[in-house]
């Protein structure tokens, strides 16, 4: 209480006039309501997207991706690989500085790669093949491999969390399992920590030390030129209020306006809708392999003939221009999309076939426990509809409503469904992450060491390893077909659709760049 009182007194005595004087004008400030709150400022320690959004503001990347999702140098000026593809050498651009004024060196880059690699799926694969990551001098660092790793630049440039952001060596040498609270990066913005109010608003000012590339901006590649003085992430949990604030001009950008309010937004001549992520988001249905009934392959296969993605998407996303059904194991629209073993999808829902498989699998009428996150509308609606589809096929469904915090705890329970466990849960994944058999944990089939659902399949693991070593896109696509062929036989998990959530912005705020799973604020201008 005493501490609270003293802190309150301190806050109350802050010089308000001074604060007002240092505040940039509204015409140079972009106010944005993002999809959620920033849970922690360390974008390596967590895979939470909002922490990566924060990271993209204050840190820079060695490589970015252009609008074709191809890796392009960002902090790196030039790079090369030895003929045997085992030694990668990188040189940093001139003039790179952290926000504390110190120069970015190769030592910072090497330490940042090492910390990131421990937490990233691609990074872990790289580490398994790595002999050494070290700086040769202040500008040059080298990654020495034991065996070739064609995905190295894809990993360095990926916008999927955790993103390889470069931190000072001092912070980057922190145990990857420990959180970093110091926020000093070399990115296009600097976090204004004195005016930031955690949980309420996060303030980012244009960095005076940032040195952008000369090329035009393209996704997370090219020149990250900041065209406003300040960006404010406002945490606004009520969507109705956020839409009203956008219409009133109190905010400039709303990342996830509810689809059912889009008609209201579209009638406002001052507001535009924009699709910032072509690959969108993929709805993921987790299936528990450890317990009956879905420890049985026939019964998992029956689910493929029951799921009707169209019906599961429509209640939330209403118009087909915002969603689509997808029969691919990897994201539709990505280079890995293919139609191998998708007869179940092309034929549409087939309850007769599902019942046949249920009979072959010996379904005994035991309840199927479905976890339903009621505070996330698309998951809630998908679970409601899927429960009904399962019932129509003859499954006995126990739909268990709870909030997301409860789902994430419950899904970790490996116990039997009637003893606190589960059979089915719903989540979602970025379209880019899902376009890669290694980016998300759900693609693995490593049993109880793996992700929630704990599927086991050696063939899938062998194919994933083959995919990594594929040297060209065509080779990866061919292995991708094999992975999918196998996946739809064993059914480690399923999908309930794919959607592209449009963002809404005031028309006087322009220059939005498309980066999968991120929203950049460089290049954004306000008239």
């Amino acid at each position, binding site marked *: 209480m005493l501490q609270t009182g003293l802190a*309150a007194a301190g806050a109350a005595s802050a010089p308000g006039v001074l604060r007002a004087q240092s505040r940039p004008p509204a015409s140079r400030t972009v106010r944005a309501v993002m999809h959620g709150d*920033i849970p*922690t400022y360390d974008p390596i320690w*967590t895979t939470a997207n909002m922490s990566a959004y924060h990271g993209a503001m204050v840190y820079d990347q060695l490589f970015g991706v252009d609008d074709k999702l191809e890796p392009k140098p960002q902090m790196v000026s030039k790079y090369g690989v030895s003929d045997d593809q085992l030694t990668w050498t990188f040189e940093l651009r001139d003039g790179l500085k952290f926000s504390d004024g110190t120069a970015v060196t190769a030592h910072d880059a090497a330490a940042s790669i090492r910390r990131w690699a421990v937490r990233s799926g691609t990074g872990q694969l790289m580490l398994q093949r790595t002999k050494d990551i070290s700086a040769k001098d202040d500008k040059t660092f080298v990654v020495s491999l034991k065996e070739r790793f064609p995905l190295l630049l894809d990993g360095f440039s990926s916008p999927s969390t955790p993103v390889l952001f470069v931190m000072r060596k001092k912070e980057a040498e922190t145990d990857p399992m420990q959180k970093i609270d110091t926020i000093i990066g070399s990115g296009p913005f600097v976090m204004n920590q004195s005016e930031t109010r*955690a*949980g309420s608003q996060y303030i980012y000012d244009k960095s005076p030390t940032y040195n952008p590339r000369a090329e035009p901006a393209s996704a997370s590649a090219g020149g990250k030129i900041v065209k406003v003085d300040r960006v404010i992430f406002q945490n606004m949990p009520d969507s109705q209020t956020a839409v009203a*604030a956008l219409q009133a001009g109190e905010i400039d950008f709303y990342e996830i306006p509810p689809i059912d309010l889009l008609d209201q937004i579209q009638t406002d001549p001052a507001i535009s809708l924009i699709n910032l992520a072509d690959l969108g988001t993929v709805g993921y249905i987790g299936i528990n392999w450890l317990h009956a009934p879905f420890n049985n392959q026939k019964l998992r296969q029956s689910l493929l003939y029951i799921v009707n993605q169209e019906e599961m998407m429509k209640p939330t996303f209403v118009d087909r221009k915002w969603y689509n059904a997808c029969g691919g194991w990897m994201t539709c629209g990505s280079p890995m999309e293919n139609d191998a073993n998708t007869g179940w999808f092309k034929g549409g829902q087939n309850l007769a076939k599902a019942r046949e498989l249920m009979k072959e699998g010996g379904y005994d009428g035991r309840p199927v426990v479905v976890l339903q996150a009621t505070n996330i509308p698309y998951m809630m609606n998908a679970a409601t509809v899927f429960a009904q589809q399962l019932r129509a096929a003859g499954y006995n469904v126990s739909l268990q409503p709870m909030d997301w*915090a409860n789902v994430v*705890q419950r899904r970790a329970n490996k116990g039997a469904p009637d003893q606190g466990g589960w059979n089915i849960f719903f989540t979602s994944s970025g379209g880019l992450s899902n376009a890669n058999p290694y980016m998300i944990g759900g693609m693995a089939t490593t049993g109880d060491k793996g992700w929630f659902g704990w599927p086991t399949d050696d063939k899938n693991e062998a194919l994933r390893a083959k995919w990594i070593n594929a040297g060209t896109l065509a080779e990866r696509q061919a292995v991708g077909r094999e992975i999918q062929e196998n996946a739809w036989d064993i059914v480690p998990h399923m999908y309930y659709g794919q959607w592209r959530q449009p963002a809404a912005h005031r028309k006087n705020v322009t220059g939005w760049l498309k980066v999968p799973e991120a929203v950049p604020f460089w290049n954004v201008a306000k008239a």
Partner: protein
Amino acid sequence: MLPVMAVVAVCVFLLLHLAPGDPASIIAGENVSPENIARIRTQLGLDLPVWKQFLVWVGALLTGDLGHSMFWGDPVASLIAQRAEPTISLAITTLLVAVFLAISLGVLAAARAGSLVDRLVMGFAVLGFSVPVFVVGYVLIFVFAINLKWLPVQGYVPIADGVGLWLRNLVLPSVALGMAYVALIARITRTTMLDVLAEDYMRTAKAKGVANRRMLFRHALKNAAVPIATVVGNGVALLIGGVVITETVFNIPGIGRLVVDAIARRDYPIIQGVIMVFSGVYVLVNLLVDLSYTLFDPRVRG
């Protein structure tokens, strides 16, 4: 006061820790291994037995330390302090508007008991108590912010940035939050005033020719004040509950929003800290209400 706070501390801690939900899984993000989630649980001390976690928390609490947010790592005390001004502002403006309006309406209804005015006031009271705060909030936003553009949709401006701007942002939330409070106080004011007005000494005053306004406000209202003050004090709980919703609807970065967001994430130290502060305020307000009886009723002083 201390026994009440102790009971609150035990109840809050047990309710939170026995309820399902895992902050470590939320902090970790979606695409992480169960091992990493387990590491975060260990770092946060969530792997300790509940009784040990309770002792750690209470030990710190006794030294005035409310702990640190599991998410941002900031001290809970400073998070509450950052959010205190908007909440205190909203509570005070709501209280002032509500008490002034409610007592005026209650006295008016009592003075005109049985008339159309009385029925209108009581109808308004029923409506105010029945319509949820968020519905009132959305209607006010639609009419006064979107259509008429008189007032802002959302947000809070610190009083240091100008009293006018500060008040402008508080008008809609205060009215929305005050509706239920006005209804509650107006009803009790009317009832109590009717009881007092039926007393012999009021008839005597009337017979002696005391002016109506003087009789109502000088004699009747003062004697009706004790139950009204009690309801105002008890209503603080209603106000606190309403603050949580109002701050969400109007995007006011106050303590209510802080706790709502913390509940969704299971940020235990923030939830526990805020509830301890709210319960302390509630106990303190009721203590002040008890003391105020001495002002209204000299018999209590004896």
